[in-house]
C-alpha cells in the first residue's frame, strides 16, 4: 500500500511538473535593459526550463534582444548561471552584458 501511494505521488508530481507553470521574474540591466525597453518582466515558463531554452524564448519574443543573446550573462537567484542550468521555481533571473564597474 505504501509503495502504491509513493508511486502514485511520484506520478502526480511528474504530471504536475510537466503541466504547471513556473512564475519567474526577469531583470534587465545596461544595454539589455535599453533593448528590452523595460527594467523587468514577470513571466510564466514551463517547469524544468533551462537557461538555454529561456534565452531562445526571449530571443523569439523580443526580437530586439536576439542579437544580445549571443554574449549575455545570466544569473539565477543572484548567481551566474549557464545554458544547462534548470530554472528553479519562482526564480529571480537577470540578464546583462559583461560588467564594467570600477
Amino acid at each position, binding site marked *: 500500500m505504501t509503495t502504491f501511494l509513493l508511486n502514485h505521488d511520484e506520478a502526480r508530481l511528474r504530471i504536475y511538473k510537466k503541466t504547471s507553470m513556473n512564475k519567474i521574474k526577469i531583470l534587465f*540591466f545596461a544595454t539589455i535593459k535599453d533593448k528590452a525597453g523595460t527594467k523587468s518582466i514577470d513571466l510564466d515558463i514551463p517547469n524544468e526550463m533551462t537557461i538555454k531554452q529561456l534565452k531562445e524564448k526571449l530571443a523569439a519574443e523580443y526580437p530586439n534582444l536576439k542579437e544580445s543573446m549571443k554574449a549575455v550573462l545570466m544569473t539565477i537567484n*543572484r548567481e*551566474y548561471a549557464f545554458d544547462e542550468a534548470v530554472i528553479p521555481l519562482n526564480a529571480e533571473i537577470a540578464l546583462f552584458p559583461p*560588467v*564594467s*564597474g570600477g
Partner: protein
Amino acid sequence: MNFPTIYSITETEIDLNDLLAKITLSSTGAAAIFTGMVRGVTSRDTPHETIYLEYESYIPMAEAKMKQVADEIRQKWSSIEGIAIVQRIGRLYPKTPTVLIACTAAHRDTGVFEAARYGIDRLKEIVPIWKKEVGPKGEEWVEGDYFPKANE
C-alpha cells in the same frame, strides 16, 4: 580576532577617512588603498572626452559578489586584517572617486598592495555594475570582456 569587512554600493560620496578608520585595528600598520575616478580626458586607445558617467548596479547581487571578492582576498592573503570595497553609482562627473578598495595589514610587505590590486581587478570581472559614458558626441554603455565561469 574579528576582522572588519565592508562592502557596499552607495549613491553618496565615498568617505575615505571614515572607511579607513573602520578597517584600522590596533594591530594595523599598513593600508593599501586603490581608488578610481571619472577620467575627463582619455588619451590612451581611443582618445575622447567624458562629460559624465552614469553607473547602475544589480545591487543585492553586487554586494554579495563584493563579499565574495573579500573572501577570496582573505583566502589568498591570510595577513589581511580589514577590507573595504565600495562602489558609488549614479551620475558621476570627472575627478569624482567612483570606487574604493582598501586592505589593511600589520606590515606593508605582507601582500597588502597585491590584495588591493586583486580586489579591483576582481570587482571589474564579477561584480554586476555597468557604466554609460556620456561625451560631446553622444552616449555609450561601456561593456567589459570577462565571462564568469561556473561557481564564480
